[in-house]
């Protein structure tokens, strides 16, 4: 039997199938809707969208956040149960993107919430989300 740390044990529970809470955002979410549709069906991988953060494993932050909405996002993140993961979509979460000089958007999501994986693009294609989820699974398998 392999000895694993507590963190690795809780994270391995994620590997089966992940349930997503879609924090309905700005521009990024238009490329998340086709994921639910019939062309890039995500339900065949076990991913479904749930209506409440208490049942979710993954929080998708898809796009720029303003000062008003980052406070609500933090409250939602606190309500999720362990193990939880944040996926940040789009270039606005990394450097501020197109709105780098706007007085109301935040420039780096890492200052406010702990991000697990970034997906670049403006907006990124739907297949990029599948690749990101696969990378998370690979990372979790290697945790000791």
């Amino acid at each position: 039997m392999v000895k694993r740390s507590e963190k690795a044990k809780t994270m391995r529970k994620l590997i089966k199938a992940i349930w997503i809470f879609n924090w309905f955002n700005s521009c990024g979410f238009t490329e998340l809707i086709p994921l639910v549709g019939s062309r890039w069906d995500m339900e065949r991988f076990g991913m479904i969208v749930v209506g409440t953060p208490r049942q979710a494993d993954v929080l998708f932050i898809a796009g720029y956040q303003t000062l008003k909405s980052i406070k609500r996002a933090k409250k939602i993140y606190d309500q999720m149960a362990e193990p939880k993961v944040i996926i940040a979509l789009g270039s606005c979460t990394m450097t501020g993107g197109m709105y780098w000089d706007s007085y109301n958007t935040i420039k780096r999501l890492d200052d406010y919430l702990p991000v697990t994986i970034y997906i670049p693009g403006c907006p990124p294609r739907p297949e990029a989300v599948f690749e990101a989820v696969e990378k998370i699974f690979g990372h979790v398998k290697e945790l000791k």
Partner: protein
Amino acid sequence: MINQMEPAPKDTEYDLYFGPAHPGSGNFGVKLKIDGEIVTSARADPGYLHRGFEKLMEYRTPIQNAVLSDRLCVLEPLNWNLVHAEAVDELMDIDVPERAKYIRVIMAELSRIQSHIIWYGAFSIGTGFDTGFKMAFGYRDYVLDLFELITGGRVYPAGYICPGGVRRDLPNGAMDKILKVLDQMDEMIKLEELENPALDARAKGVGILKVKDAIRLGATGPVLRGSGMKTDVRKEEPYEIYDRLDFEVPVRREGDAYARYIIGIEEMKQSIKIVKQALEELPEGEVIAPKFKKPKVSVKIPEGEVYVRNEVARGEAAVYMVSNGGSTPYRCKIRGPDFLHMIPVLEHLLKGAQIADVPAIYWSLNICPADMDR
């Protein structure tokens, strides 16, 4: 026996925040005061997406603004590109070549079709008709593949319609592909028009807006046409080549959610007709004015002011641009249709409605919060 019982107790009032994290709403919050099952008052809470767009545009040249203008409303980027490009063209007095005008109209109408498909899908899922949502978003991908072929991006075309014309010509084989996609759209509309008694029961007679109220509250576009007034910016002050094309403006008298939903489907049919006519008459020639052919990043805008109105998928859009001779606009005010639909019209319609009708009313107004907050 039940008629002889005492009525229910009186203190059944509570507050409900139908907010952005709710799966049935968009990026927008509404504070509802509810008494039992009836909404007594509603107050809109915007501002989740405010970026200060008008101020961002004052620091960028017109060519850079063309790329920024697609992000005004993510659900119909090419239509907003067109409004901004027309404002700069009029201010700088540029002659746009004929072929560019036809291509602009084709792209704008395809974007309108794609936006109405999203409206149909969102309205279906709001009233519980899940199959309609999946079907709509399945067919929408054909149009997005076409955008990727012509402009380079599925969602954001990177300022394809820029001041002076369009950035590049249609590639080889694009015209045949457009005709094939239009046939698939015809197929989709046949499926959408099938009767669905559950949707009818949820949408008929719900959220009635009378004509006098609509004009007083500032509604435009399909919301005003659903209440009985025949008006369309493309017919009243034709821009580009709309005065040479033959199309109708659908109008209904009832003013309820079902009437607005039917207008969405009828408008898609008219857009298909417009694209077919424009493709037949497409002339040869240049696609961009000579001044913007070798892209110089900064050109001087002459002094003056201009107000341009257009019909985007959601209503009347306008840009008021003032320049004092520099290379960036001095003031650029953007008027979107959703600013009026989401605050005065929604508060008026939700008063007195039942809780179960709130999603049907909300999604029948075809809202886009990004356009309201700018």
